[in-house]
């Protein structure tokens, strides 16, 4: 019997309409680094939220045993008291507070109700030495880079007497040097007896650091691999992650590809929060009439950033590169320019960026194209109604009328409203970012049919998706993006999930 610090058994977690986890089991040995791998949406983060009490005891089925005791966590506070600390991908630091204040946030070093700043800063200094961060504890967190902020998070975890440290994509936002330092630190912590669970898309890092790997796919545990066996390769992990059949979920489509519509060359984008970090690096791609092109990449690869920076510079700073529309170089300074040039972008987050949820269907559909529906600045509301009702029928938007409020529609119908809005601008190029996210299977099929029709009408469609089967079933050609670089371009015939995943996880040379 090995000494396991954590047993999760038969964990099932359902959300309305979706089973995110089904009978998942996970065992972690004391003092090891255990990696969890899986595609976007496989259920990794949900599992960690169950473990850390974000989803409290009773909201899931199954047993969690930690350090030999059955856990009934009612919230994060309970799991932290037990010694489990989770560090999320989006860091939870207060940028305007000092390093020391952040480390002891919620755990202030006080005596008689007053904070003992000497003790706070002294202890913070010691924790910073343990994580190898040479910064003054009174430095503001906003003034240090993301890599160092990550270390502050770990120092904060150590201050809570952590036994099990969970890191969700810790290196996604880090450069190579910071990543290497972080991985070294995790090895050091392991040697001190702290168990780590790490979720990462970077397979080379996982092979480098992990002692064992659990693979999750579609909310189920597939297998646990022992690194000690020496048999584990990136290919082995990838086949575990994607081993899924392509069934008949896609309408048939015969592509009729025409001439080039949009060409992007040497496109480079820097992060607005860290202007020295390249989010997209010298990316080039071409879209043709009647063609559905896929853009595959793991979370943080820069897919949305690439699309939005092209779409009227709605993301990023220090953007350089060239865009050609029908062979002529164009300069797209804002969304209005993009719309005029016939470029449309349907966002991945329709509720936050795509729709006015308190407004009705017709006013959402007309919002980009009011110029076409108005004369001398006055909107022809009857024409607007007619256009919107036409879309309601042709797109099969399920709502009693176009005066229904968009916020009350289902995800699939909301997505159809977003698509209608952009189709009505009569674009030549449609960039669809995660067009089927959060949509049920039936509505997905309808969206695929719409995308095929758009291509048949001679439009160029760029589909960004985390779901590889979707790209394989829909696209005529697929680009892969890894850490901001285009790492591959595969025609439909040559593309497989394994090959795509290989290119998507390709490190920087």
């Amino acid at each position, binding site marked *: 019997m090995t000494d396991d610090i954590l047993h999760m058994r038969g964990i099932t977690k359902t959300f309305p309409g979706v089973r995110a986890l089904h009978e998942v089991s996970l065992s972690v040995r004391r003092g090891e680094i255990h990696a969890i791998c899986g595609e976007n949406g496989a259920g990794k983060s949900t599992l960690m939220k169950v473990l850390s009490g974000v989803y409290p005891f009773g909201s899931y089925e199954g047993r969690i045993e930690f350090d030999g005791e059955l856990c009934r966590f009612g919230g994060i506070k309970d799991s932290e008291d037990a010694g489990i600390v989770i560090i999320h991908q989006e860091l939870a630091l207060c940028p305007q507070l000092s390093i020391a204040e952040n480390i002891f946030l919620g755990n202030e070093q006080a005596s008689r109700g007053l904070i003992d700043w000497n003790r706070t800063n002294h202890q913070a200094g010691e924790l910073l030495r343990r994580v190898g961060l040479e910064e003054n504890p009174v430095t503001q967190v906003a003034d240090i880079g993301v890599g160092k902020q990550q270390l502050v998070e770990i120092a904060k975890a150590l201050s809570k007497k952590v036994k099990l440290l969970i890191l969700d994509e810790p290196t996604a936002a880090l450069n190579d040097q910071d990543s290497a330092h972080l991985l070294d630190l995790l090895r050091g912590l392991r040697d001190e007896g702290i168990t780590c669970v790490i979720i990462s898309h970077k397979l080379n890092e996982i092979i480098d650091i992990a002692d064992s790997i659990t693979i999750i796919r579609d909310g189920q545990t597939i297998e646990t691999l022992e690194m000690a066996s020496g048999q584990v390769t990136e290919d082995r992990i990838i086949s575990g992650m994607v081993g899924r059949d392509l069934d008949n979920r896609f309408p048939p489509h015969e592509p009729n590809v025409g001439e080039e519509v949009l060409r992007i060359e040497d496109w480079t984008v820097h992060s607005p929060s860290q202007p020295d970090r390249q989010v997209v690096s010298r990316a080039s791609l071409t879209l043709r009439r009647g063609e559905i092109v896929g853009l595959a990449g793991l979370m943080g690869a820069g897919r949305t950033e690439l699309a939005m920076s092209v*779409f*009227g510079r*709605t993301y990023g700073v220090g953007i350089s590169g060239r865009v050609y529309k029908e062979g002529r170089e164009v300069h797209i300074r*804002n*969304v*209005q320019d*993009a*719309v005029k040039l016939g470029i449309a*972008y349907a*966002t991945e987050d329709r509720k*936050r*960026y*795509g*729709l*006015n*949820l*308190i*407004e*009705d269907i017709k*006013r959402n559909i*007309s*919002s*980009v194209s*009011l*110029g076409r529906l*108005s004369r001398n*600045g*006055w*909107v022809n*509301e*009857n024409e607007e*109604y*007619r256009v919107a*009702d036409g879309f309601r029928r042709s797109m099969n938007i399920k*709502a*009693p*009328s176009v*005066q*229904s*409020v968009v*916020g*009350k529609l289902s995800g699939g119908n909301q997505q159809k409203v977003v698509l209608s*809005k952009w189709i009505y601008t009569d674009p030549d190029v449609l960039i669809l970012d995660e067009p089927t996210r959060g949509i049920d299977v039936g509505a997905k099929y309808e969206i695929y049919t719409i995308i095929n029709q758009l291509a048949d009408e001679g439009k160029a469609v760029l589909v960004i998706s985390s779901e590889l089967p979707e790209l394989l079933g829909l696209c005529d050609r697929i680009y892969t993006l890894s850490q901001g670089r285009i790492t591959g371009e595969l025609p439909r015939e040559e593309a497989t999930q394994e090959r795509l995943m290989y290119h998507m996880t390709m490190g920087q040379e």
Partner: protein
Amino acid sequence: MSSSTTPADLEAGPRRDAKGEPPGRLKLGGLSINIRQSGIYIAFALIVVLFSALTDGALLQPQNISNIVVQNSYILILAIGMILIIIAGHIDLSVGSVVAVTGAVSAVLMVNYGVPWPLALLLTLVVGGLIGAWQGYWIAYFGIPSFIVTLAGMLLFRALTLTVLGNQGIGPFPDAVRTLSNGFTDSYLGNVGLGPLGGADVFSLLIGLIAIAGMAAAQWRTRAARAGYGQSVDPLPVFVLKVAAAAVLIMAVVVQLARFRNLPWVLVLLALLVLGYSLLANRSVFGRRIYAVGGNLQAAVLSGIKVKSVVFWIFVNMGVLAAVAGIIFAGRLNQAGPTAGNSFELDAIAAAFIGGAAVQGGVGKVVGAITGGLIMGVINNGMSLIGSPSERVMLVKGIVLLAAVAFDVWTKRRAGAGAR
């Protein structure tokens, strides 16, 4: 409100909830009434009935109706500008001070420099627009929250008022300006006997009839056009009933005014402003963009809406309307004083929120804000008629504001729960 814009006219407004039967919908015979939409009008009617009873009908006497309109006209004008700003998700705390400074500028121009009144009024409106442009620049293009910019403006423009006036009141104003703020239309066509109601001004009655005819014709054309496009419309009896009810309401107010001293000029001005701005909010491209910006700023940006320019222009508009209110207020008192417009911003903001605007933006109607302003006006007037002390008036107004917003939040929460 005796303007030719009625709640029914604005049914096409953005807040109509045509989906199914949301909670908060009342069925009365064939009429289905959305409480959240109509609540404000029902509340207004109840308050009018209540104070009519408490004052033995004095509230609805010809002279008192005229007083309510004239006394609240500047708040109502401010409320029109304020509702647009609140729909866009902003706020303007400076309007009281802008009322003061524009009133002072008009007084200095006309009284000290003898500028002819039409030119002086035009210049005052330009000053108001420039003040709005100043604030709009800092808010829209520099990115400072409107709360801060207009809080600073509240101090700045009050200081400017004192400087312009040299710390004293300036007056009197030319007759034309006083007539605009305080005067009535002439009896161009003489009087006519209305039986037991006594004599009434023919011209005023004629204007009222023309307004009703115009309203009915516009409603009919809208209905016909919608039906032509195959949209659902009210059945004919319901439509006739709605138009007739609005007509009776307008005529009742006009008759009372005609029995007193004809139509106040500010009422004519206000009616035109309400009509114009209602159309602007509902039917113009610019109006649509205001709702889009307030409803979801990010989505508006990604839809190619020039958000900064929209925000800039609604503040310019607010400046111009504040100048209109400033002229009328100064003209009414016949002098521009250093304390003019004190706390008007609070009344205008309260009017907008009582009238159904949402704190998050994206929601609100011009007619709603006017009704909200009238509710407060009737409470003020009615309570002073029954001799309530001013602290009690303030207390009641505070409670009404809180209750109105609480009601809005409550219905919204119930609607949200119903959708899930």
